C-alpha cells in the first residue's frame, strides 16, 4: 500500500511529498525500507528537481546506502550540498532556532545521529584534520543531548569514547615530547657536594702566577670516569670540573641524558616502531638459533607455485634485506643515538666535545664572586645549548639522511627483484608494491620519531588515573606487538599526582613490553595494579616459554644486580626492562622499589614491583 502511494505521488509529480513520505515511513518503521522505490526517487534527485536544502535528500541517500552498501559518495555529496544550501560550513551550526524550527525533529535527529558521523565527515573538505573531525562529532553529540534528551545516555557514551581517544592521544603526545630528559636539579645537588673542594681551590688560585696549559680535551675512561688531571693549574682544575659536569649530565646512570635516551627511546621504542613496519608488511624475518635469518614464509607460501630458482633467489634477497634492515637499526641505536665525547662514541649525534674557544668563553663568564651554583648553571646551560643544537640536527638527519638510507635499501631490493623477474620471466610485482608502500609508511614513522628529539617543555600535568596510563602504554605497544590483546589489565581506581605521570607511564610500558616480549605467545598475560599497605603494586602473571632453570638463573642475576645497585644495565637496551623500572622508581620518583620475580615448576611466571606511594596518592 505504502509503495503504491509513493509511486502514485511520483506519477502525479508530487516529488517532494513522495520523498518526505518515504523518509517518514522509514523513520516510523525501518522494515518499510523494502517498500521505498529508491530507483525512482534517486533518479528524481539526480535530475536536480529538488532544492538541496531538503533534509530528506541526504537521509534517503543514506537509507539507500545502508540497503545496498555501495558508493558512500552519494551520501557525502548530499550531506555537503545540504550544508551549503543552509549557508553553514559545519553540521554543528544547525544548533540554531531557525533550523530546529524548520525541520521535523525526527529527521534532524536522524540526520545528526546517522549521517553527521566521523566516516562521512572524513570526506568533507571543510574538515582538514582528524582532530577537527573528532571535535565536530563531539559538538554534534552535545547538540543531540539538547535536541533529543531521551537518548542522551547514548550521546554521552559517544562523547566519552571520543574524549578518551583524545586524552590518550594527548597523553601519547606528552610522552613523545618528554623523551629527552636530564634531571638537572639532582645533578646540581650531587655536584654541589662533589665539586665544592675543587671549586674552592679553583677560586683561590690566580692566573697571574700560573703557566698556561696547552689545549685541553675531555677524556672519559671505559667506566665513564674522567681521567684525573694531575697538573695543578687553574685551567686544569676548570677543565676537570667541566669534565665532571659533562660526565654527569651525559652519562650519570640515574639522572643523565643517556638514561633517558636508553629508557625512553632506544629501549623498545625506536627499533620496535621501525622494524614493526617491515614485519607488518612481511618483509623481514627473525634470526634462528644459528644466527641465520629464517626464510620468509609469507612470500614463499604466496608463490608456492613457483618452484624454481626464481623464488629461491627472492627468498635469499629477502633474507639479506632482513639482515640489512637490522644492521641499520642497530647502527642507529648503538652508534648514532649516543653521546659523543672525546674518546667515546665517535659517531654519536649528541656531541659533547668542547672546542678550546668554548671552554675559554665559559671560563671568562666566571668572576671572583661566582658561586659554585652559578658556575654549574653556566656549564649546564652550555650543555643544554649543545643538546638543543644536536636535537635540531638529529631531527633533520632522521627525516632526511637516515630515512634515505632505509629508502635506498628498499630501492636496492626492488632493483634486485626486477633483475630476477627479467632473468626468469617471473612476476613478483606484489612484493615491489609492498616495498613501495613501506617507503611511505617509513617516511611518516620517521617524521613521528623525529618529534621525540625535543627539549622537554615545562608543562604541568594534572592528576590522573593509573588506568589512563595503561591505555596510553597499550596504544604505544600496538605499534610494536601484534598481540596486545593478549594482555589483560586489572587496575584499581587509583589517582596519582600529575608529577609522576611520565615515570608511571614508562614503568607500565616496560612491564607490558617485558610481558609481550618474553611471555608465552599463546597464553594471556595479566597485569594487576593495586594499592596494598600504602604501596602501589604492579603484579604480572604469565607463562614462560623458556627452560625453567635458565629463567631462574636470569631472574637471580637481575635481582642480584638490582640489589647491588649495578646500574650499568640501565643504558643497555637488549635485556629486560627491570633495570629501567628500578632506575625510574629510584631516581625519577625517588622512592625505594621492591622487586620480586619468580617462576614455578609449571612455568607460571610472576613479577611484583611495589613502592610506597602515599605522597603521590590523590
Amino acid at each position, binding site marked *: 500500500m505504502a509503495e503504491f502511494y509513493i509511486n502514485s505521488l511520483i506519477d502525479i509529480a508530487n516529488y517532494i511529498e513522495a520523498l518526505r513520505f518515504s523518509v517518514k515511513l522509514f523513520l516510523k518503521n525501518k522494515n518499510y525500507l523494502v517498500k521505498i522505490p529508491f530507483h525512482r526517487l534517486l533518479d528524481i534527485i539526480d535530475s536536480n528537481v529538488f532544492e538541496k536544502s531538503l533534509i530528506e535528500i541526504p537521509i534517503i541517500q543514506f537509507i539507500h546506502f545502508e540497503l545496498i552498501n555501495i558508493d558512500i559518495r552519494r551520501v557525502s555529496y548530499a550531506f555537503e550540498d545540504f550544508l551549503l544550501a543552509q549557508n553553514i560550513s559545519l553540521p554543528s551550526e544547525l544548533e540554531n532556532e531557525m533550523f530546529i524550527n524548520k525541520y521535523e525533529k525526527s529527521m534532524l535527529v536522524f540526520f545528526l545521529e546517522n549521517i553527521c558521523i566521523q566516516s562521512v565527515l*572524513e570526506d568533507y*573538505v571543510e574538515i582538514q584534520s*582528524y582532530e577537527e573531525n573528532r571535535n565536530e562529532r563531539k559538538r554534534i553529540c552535545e547538540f543531540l543531548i539538547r535536541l533529543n534528551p531521551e537518548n542522551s545516555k547514548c550521546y554521552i557514551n559517544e562523547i566519552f569514547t571520543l574524549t578518551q581517544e583524545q586524552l590518550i*592521544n594527548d597523553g601519547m603526545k606528552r610522552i613523545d615530547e618528554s623523551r629527552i630528559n636530564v634531571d638537572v636539579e639532582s645533578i646540581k645537588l650531587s655536584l654541589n657536594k662533589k665539586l665544592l673542594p675543587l671549586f674552592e681551590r679553583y677560586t683561590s688560585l690566580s692566573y697571574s702566577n700560573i703557566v698556561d696549559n696547552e689545549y685541553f680535551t675531555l677524556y672519559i675512561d671505559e667506566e665513564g670516569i674522567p681521567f684525573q688531571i694531575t697538573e695543578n693549574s687553574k685551567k686544569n682544575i676548570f677543565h676537570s670540573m667541566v669534565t665532571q659536569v659533562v660526565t654527569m649530565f651525559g652519562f650519570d646512570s640515574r639522572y643523565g641524558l643517556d638514561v633517558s635516551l636508553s629508557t625512553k627511546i632506544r629501549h623498545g621504542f625506536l627499533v620496535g616502531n621501525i622494524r614493526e613496519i617491515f614485519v607488518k608488511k612481511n618483509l623481514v624475518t627473525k634470526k634462528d638459533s644459528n644466527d641465520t635469518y629464517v626464510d620468509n614464509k609469507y612470500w614463499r607460501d604466496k608463490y608456492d607455485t613457483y618452484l624454481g630458482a626464481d623464488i629461491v633467489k627472492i627468498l635469499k634477497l629477502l633474507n639479506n634485506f632482513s639482515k640489512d634492515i637490522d644492521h641499520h637499526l642497530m647502527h642507529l641505536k648503538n652508534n648514532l643515538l649516543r653521546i659523543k665525547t672525546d674518546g667515546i662514541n665517535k659517531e654519536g649525534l649528541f656531541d659533547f666535545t668542547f672546542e678550546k674557544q668554548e671552554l675559554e668563553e665559559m671560563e671568562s663568564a666566571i668572576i671572583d664572586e661566582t658561586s659554585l651554583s652559578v658556575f654549574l648553571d653556566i656549564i649546564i646551560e652550555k650543555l643544554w645549548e649543545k643538546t638543543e643544537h644536536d636535537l635540531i640536527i638529529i631531527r633533520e638527519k632522521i627525516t632526511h639522511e637516515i630515512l634515505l638510507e632505509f629508502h635506498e635499501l628498499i*630501492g636496492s631490493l626492488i632493483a634486485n627483484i626486477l633483475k630476477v623477474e627479467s632473468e626468469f620471466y617471473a612476476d613478483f610485482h606484489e612484493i615491489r608494491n609492498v616495498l613501495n608502500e613501506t617507503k611511505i609508511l617509513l617516511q611518516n614513522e620517521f617524521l613521528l620519531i623525529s618529534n621525540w628529539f625535543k627539549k622537554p617543555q615545562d608543562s604541568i600535568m594534572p592528576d590522573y588515573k593509573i588506568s589512563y596510563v595503561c591505555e596510553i602504554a597499550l596504544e604505544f605497544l600496538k605499534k610494536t606487538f601484534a598481540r596486545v590483546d593478549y594482555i589483560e589489565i586489572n587496575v584499581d581506581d587509583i589517582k596519582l599526582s600529575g608529577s609522576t605521570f611520565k615515570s608511571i607511564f614508562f614503568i607500565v610500558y616496560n612491564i607490558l613490553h617485558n610481558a609481550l616480549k618474553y611471555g608465552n605467545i599463546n597464553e594471556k598475560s595479566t597485569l594487576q595494579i593495586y594499592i596494598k599497605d600504602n604501596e602501589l603494586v604492579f603484579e604480572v602473571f604469565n607463562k614462560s616459554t623458556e627452560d625453567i632453570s635458565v629463567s631462574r638463573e636470569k631472574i637471580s642475576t637481575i635481582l642480584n644486580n638490582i640489589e647491588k645497585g649495578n646500574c650499568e644495565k640501565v643504558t643497555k637496551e637488549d635485556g629486560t626492562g627491570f633495570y629501567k623500572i628500578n632506575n625510574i622508581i629510584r631516581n625519577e620518583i625517588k622512592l625505594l622499589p621492591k622487586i620480586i620475580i619468580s617462576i614455578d615448576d609449571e612455568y607460571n611466571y610472576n613479577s611484583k614491583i611495589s613502592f610506597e606511594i602515599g605522597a603521590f596518592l590523590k
Partner: protein
Amino acid sequence: MKTIIIEDYMTKFNEIKQFFKSKNIQVEGKHSYLSGLKEIIVNKYDLIILDMSLPNYDIKISERSGKERTYGGLDILHEIKRRKIESKVIIITQFDSFGEIGEKKSLEQLRLEIKSHNFENFKGLIHYDASSNDWEKELGKLLKECF
C-alpha cells in the same frame, strides 16, 4: 602554467617538482586527499598532478591521518567532475596494482576504469619508477599534448 602536485611520498614529490622546475614551471604541493581537494576548489590550476593512493589528512605529529585512500586520486577526479573544475589532470603512481586481495586491480584495469567514467579533464595515468626515467618521458609527452 599553474600546476599543483598532490602527492604524499616526498621523494616522488620532489622528483616530479624537479621535473617541472627544469621546464621553468613553478609548482604548488599538497600532501593529502583533503588538503589537495580544498586547494583545487579554492584556487584555479591549469594542471593537477595526482598520486593515486593518498592519506585522508595531512600527517600530523601524534594525530591520526584518517583512512588511507587507495583510490584517493580517483576520488579527486570524481570531485573535479562534480565541481566542474576545469584543470587538466595527470595521475602518476608508483604502484602497478591496487586494492586488497580479491579486489585487486592492475594498472591497466585502473586505466580502463578511469576511462569508463568519462572524466573530461583526465589526460593520462603514468607509472612512476624511481629507477628509470620513462615516467619523465611520458609526462613530457603528455604535457606537449595538453598544452
